């Protein structure tokens, strides 16, 4: 039988403040996204016009579909921008608060670095650095636990993919040392 008093509690070492000021509103992001997509649509539309967007004897040319899709995408973006413009007097929701943005950067920047390191040192070394670093600095977990977890994780990944399933990953000097 279950006992309701048995609880699982996990604390957040560094929760985002609830009253953090807004960085930007959802409307601003929506308009910016629509403008970027509009630019993309124009670019792709132009490229497909160059490829050929008309009908020849056997039906549409290679650029026909993408050209008109770009046109529809552009129209939908313009509609979205117009709609937000008309509603500009109403208050908009917060897209992200400063505290939230800080947390998102905390995970995004290490991920970015991970990708860079993967290119130079291989995926397994990069994954060791990412897991250990993230646990120790963002999660504030004791360093020895972080290093041990990261080492075990990278090793398990290596054995699973490289050895058991023959899935080849980018590797660097360390793996070369062991003859892989």
């Amino acid at each position: 039988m279950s006992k309701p008093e048995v609880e699982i509690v996990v604390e957040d070492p560094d929760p985002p403040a609830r009253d953090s000021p807004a960085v930007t509103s959802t409307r601003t992001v929506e308009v910016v996204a629509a403008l970027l997509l509009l630019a993309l649509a124009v670019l792709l539309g132009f490229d497909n016009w160059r490829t050929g967007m008309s009908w020849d004897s056997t039906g549409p040319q290679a650029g026909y579909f993408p050209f008109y899709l770009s046109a529809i995408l552009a129209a939908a973006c313009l509609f979205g921008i117009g709609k937000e413009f008309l509603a500009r007097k109403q208050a908009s929701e917060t897209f992200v608060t400063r505290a939230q943005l800080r947390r998102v950067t905390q995970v995004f920047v290490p991920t970015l670095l991970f990708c860079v390191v993967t290119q130079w040192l291989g995926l397994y070394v990069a994954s060791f650095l990412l897991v250990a670093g993230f646990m120790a600095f963002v999660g504030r977990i004791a360093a020895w636990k972080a290093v041990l977890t990261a080492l075990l994780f990278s090793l398990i990944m290596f054995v699973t993919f490289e050895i058991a399933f023959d899935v080849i990953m980018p590797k660097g000097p360390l793996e070369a040392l062991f003859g892989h």
Partner: protein
Amino acid sequence: MEAFGLLIYGFSVLLTWKTLALMMVGLVLGIFVGVLPGLGGPNGVAILLPLTFTMDPTSAIVMLSCIYWGALFGGAITSILFNIPGEAWSVATTFDGYPMAQQGKAAEALTAAFTSSFIGSLVAVLLITFLAPGIASFALRFGPPEFFAVYLLTFCSFVGLGREEKHKTIISMTLGLLLAGVGMDTVSGQLRMTFGSNELLRGINFLVAVIGLFGISEILLTMEERLALRGHAASISPRVVLKVWKELPRYWATLLRSSAIGCWLGITPGGAIAASFMGYNLAKRFARDKDSFGKGRIEGVFAPETAAHASGTSALLPMLALGIPGSGTAAILLGGLMVWGLNPGPLLFVEHKGFVWGLIASMYLGNVVGLILVLTTVPLFAAVLRVPFSAIAPMIVVSCAIGAYAIQNAMFDIWLMLVFGVVGYAFKKIGIPLAPFTLALVLGNRAEDAFRLSMIGAGGDLRVFWSNALVGSITTLALVLLFWPLISGAMAQMRNAIRRDARLGTK
């Protein structure tokens, strides 16, 4: 019954030690993925897909689909014990599941959730077993125009019936179709939208996009929230299970209704999320004492869980029979089929009998084993949540990168995944739905090929899409669905006008 014989053949394909072991691994991984916040069915399947690249297709699909069943089961655990839906389709389960846990009836709620999931899936699998072969053999007669009409129907129903703002659905879908077209044009061999880049020559891989859109973006979103959680621990004793099962027949109407809703929404692209809410709301509407819903009523757990699972399972029906996925996860499984070198579509039932029937048999077995597994191991999986997120997040990032790289052995794909992660994060926050994008990206080229092949066949005459009753009615239905919001609006206005006239007439 031919289906029975084929099903037994399917079981014979399935019952080897290796396949059974893979099934167990898939189920455990799936439940794990379903329990963890920041991972879910589609992400889990997308990230673990690379594991299957070197397997034979049957083992691969059995393992992947078991991950999917596991994730469906796992989502209920966190909803009930922690009031945190592990999956969007378990949101409705929290309404009554969490109050039950608070009242000390967590074990009953969990048993109810797992059992009803099992019943929902079972109904959907029965539907697949007896309906899919028929649909597939009917679809064998389809030519390019018919296939294009079916694709058009899928796209149009997303735009016309989706709940999101229409222009956002259109943005998402056109973007997906455009990105699907990047690379070499399959009909003429010309290069499109590559801008001279060698990396873009290969095209934008669907799975790379999915891993970024669902995996990476979900990590970013989860990190934004407070990660602290507090919930109940529970273990299930056989006595509780028997007690809940004894009550089951009393709720036959709810179970049946939810299964039907789930199957319908799963086959059409409505999805498990809509199904779970609809199942819950209808159970509430039909109940005698509506006020007891939301306060820990067992029926409030039965209804959404049955519907979500029926929908999640039946989404595989159009994927198997027509090559058109009914949900995001089904779309990823379809992507997997292509990686394993199978050509999705009705021919699967003819050319790859072992694969299709092995999969269908694994649906039966996977759900039975899954049910037993979750009933016995709940405390273990609930404890997974004690693992801090700061340990899980980087591991998920690494798994995503492995998945993205393994598809084409390209470093470029890891960068592409990162870009899609940011795009997914922004899209989710400004309300641009990701499902139409996913669907468009996986079906885009097939739809365009079908259109251009029909044009070549018909000498460029668009009337080919109304050339016979079948293709004509599908095309017309697609257009009706596309403009459905306008049509239903006009009909409502007309009805109002008539009513007004009638009232004026009686005065």
